[in-house]
């Protein structure tokens, strides 16, 4: 019964995790078009990104095709995401705390992906073990290596971050009680997981079996040998599931909203050309009613942006 409840718990957590991301992403994506607010360097500016230039450097730029480079974006995004290149460059002391934490999480995300692959491979009849042939052995060794590395780095990083947020006044003054809770949540989860694997599941076989049941929706053998969950492993699953569901509900959702911050704002340099989709969108937002109360606007909730923007001269003469 406990095994079944755990499985259901993990499913619900995964659903909450995905639903929270989709809901938030849709909400952000559906916000109306905004005024341009790009910030250079813009990574996709072909041939100009290296020094921060834009297509506006081109004479009669509106008559020429824009040169955009996906490779340019990848060259910035990959080190930025994987290595926290910006923090390394601008806040080195913090990088030594933040990088292990984040990279640990990336490895743990990789661990989950590997465990899902393990589960699918096992369900397909493969033998994922120390004697499972080239594929099975590779998956087997990769899984525990990635697990220990991720948990270790995550723990080091979260302890270092918590220490800084506690003892460095510049940080503690900006740290909310929820932030302490969040870091403590990570630390407890990492410690429990490390303990579970040290004492009960050193080669991650128990976890692998649990994931195999998850991906095959195998509820029948949830409480059956050969690899029942120990209390520590069960606690690991509970905490990890809770954490998974919790992260996108907090400001830590920056792990995916960062995409919007870069692509919709910082690098959003697409010009409004005649007949374009942007022009149509502008036409729509200019019909929004304005209710700002200052005397030079006097928005009454009926006048539109188009109205207040074109009535300026008279308003300002008053």
């Amino acid at each position, binding site marked *: 019964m406990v095994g079944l409840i755990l499985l259901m718990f993990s499913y619900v957590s995964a659903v909450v995790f995905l639903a929270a991301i989709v809901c938030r992403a849709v909400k*952000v994506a559906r*916000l*109306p078009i*905004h*005024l*341009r*607010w*790009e*910030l*250079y*360097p*813009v990574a996709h500016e072909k041939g100009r990104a290296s*020094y*921060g*230039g834009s297509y*506006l*450097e081109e*004479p*009669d*730029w*509106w008559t020429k095709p824009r040169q955009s480079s996906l490779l340019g974006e990848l060259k910035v995004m990959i080190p*930025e995401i994987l290595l926290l290149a*910006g*923090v390394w*460059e*601008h*806040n080195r002391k913090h990088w030594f705390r*933040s990088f292990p934490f984040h990279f640990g999480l990336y490895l743990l995300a990789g661990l989950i992906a590997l465990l899902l692959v393990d589960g699918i491979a096992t369900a397909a009849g493969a033998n994922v073990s120390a004697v499972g042939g080239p594929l099975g052995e590779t998956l087997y060794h990769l899984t525990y290596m990635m697990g220990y590395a991720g948990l270790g780095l995550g723990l080091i990083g979260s302890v270092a971050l918590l220490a800084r947020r506690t003892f460095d006044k510049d*940080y503690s003054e*900006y*740290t*909310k*009680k*929820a932030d302490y809770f969040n870091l403590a949540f990570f630390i407890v989860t990492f410690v429990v997981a490390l303990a579970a694997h040290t004492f009960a599941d050193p080669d991650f076989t128990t976890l692998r079996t649990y994931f195999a049941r998850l991906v095959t929706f195998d509820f029948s053998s949830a409480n059956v040998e050969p690899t029942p969950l120990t209390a520590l492993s069960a606690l690991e699953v509970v905490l990890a599931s809770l954490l998974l569901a919790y992260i996108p509900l907090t*400001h830590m*959702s*920056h792990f995916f*909203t960062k995409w919007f*911050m870069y692509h919709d*704002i*910082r690098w959003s340099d697409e010009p*409004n050309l005649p007949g374009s989709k*942007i*022009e149509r969108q*502008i036409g729509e937002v*200019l019909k*929004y*009613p304005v*209710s*700002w*109360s*200052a005397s*030079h606007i006097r928005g009454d909730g009926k006048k539109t*942006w188009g109205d*207040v*923007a*074109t009535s*300026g*001269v008279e308003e*300002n003469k008053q």
Partner: protein
Amino acid sequence: MRRRIKVEDISKPSPKLAELRKEDFKPLPPPFEKPDSTPDFAPLGEKARERYEASLDDTIALSIPKPKNKQEENELVAKFLSGLQKLFTKENNWTFLQPLLLSMDHCAACHTCSEACHIYEASGRNPIYRPAYRSEVFRRLYKKYVKSKGGLLQAWRDGEIELNWTTVARLAELSYRCNLCRRCAQTCPIGVDNGLIAHEIRKLFSQELGIAAKELHESGSVLQLKVGSSTGMNAAVVKDNMEFIDEDVSEKTGMTIATPWDKEGADILLIHNAGEILSWPMNPGAFAVIFESAGLSWTMASELVGYDSVNYGVWYDDVQFARVALKHAEVAKKLKVKKIVLGECGHAHKALTVIADRVLTGDLNIPRESCMVTLEQLIVSGRIKVDPQRNDFPVTLHDPCNLVRLMGIVEPQRRILRRIAPRFREMEPHGVHNYCCGGGSGFAIMSGHNFGDWRNQISGRKKLEQILNAFKDELNPSIKKFVCTPCSNCKGQLRDLFNYYDLWDKHSILYDGLVELIVNCMSDAKPGFIEWEMH
């Protein structure tokens, strides 16, 4: 040792939240390395302190009258709350809602932004000038009053803040302690934009409470829409002044120059910051020399607003911004020009080219080009012949934030300088990683009370350091040095900065625009266009 200031302290009434002491300010390089080698920070007058809200620091930007009674206090707070709600609706703030919401929700308080801020650094790391301080106050108010209904869980999650007159008045002032240069946003690993948050706070106060810096609103955008220019000049005065300028530059260059006005169907409508015509007349004069010599089809416009490119709304009010941008486009449309070329004014560049790009539709969407690009074409193509030896003196380049970091126009002006200034050297850092001159976001024209001192001592300090370092081996006054400053507001700030520290008299460091430097070395013009005197 400086007192620590917490985010929630902004709500606690006290005579002064933060103190500015000269001994705390960042040390300057030689010859100003000793504190007594620079002017003292002028204290705020007692009368001003009595009449206006002055409890943030040691200066005032807004002159908000102190409330006479509790009712007035409550009214201000209620209006602020009303504006706060509106700022987060798509109807009232579609213009910046998405960027604002993302910046509100995702700060990790890593303080990476702090080290990027010239004001924070120059003040000696005054806690209230941290880019995140203002944002965190506003974020807590937003989360308490807009996103949720308060309560214990909310305070646990988002932090404590109290909303009262003191919070509102100090926050208004604090939104005018940021140059909106967005250097901090450039370094944020997540993409949070503290410059944008300062901009949005200013908007809330202007658009809902009618509170804005007088220089930007009443004497700025209101005056511009009323008489045609924030300088107060009407069309007749502008044309008169340009006629004098034409005569002056004709005499100086030995060429016959006449600025064309209201020429229908011209290729180019050139719009200057009208402040140039009054304060730096050789700048529009130099443009006329270059454009006429190159045989361009161009014109200036005498219709209302069409002769002044400034658009102060870009710093504090979306409605005023849109009104001015529309007027610029309407003038260009009426004249049937092929494109608008913006003169040497950074914020005018960004306002009309980038920000207004999502305001102007249909036949008002007339192409806009930077003068840097137009000028580069003329120099590189050889249509303007130059003799670089006439500019054989040390030259460095100030990068206006609006033109460079916020528009990506970085190289054209450099390619010109490499051709015309043999002793050109960069400041460090430069390009998109430059530092603001300290006059950004309207500060250059704000000098009420002792705000001018604040600009010169704090917001302009980093730029002063950069300029001194760029010329560190040639500070001897016998060597004339030139800071090329292709932006009218930046020039205003450098003029004040240079006067404050006596840079011209003591070290022969002068500033001026790019076109003056071009005309100074034009082969077809008489030598000596640059006037080596403080102006």
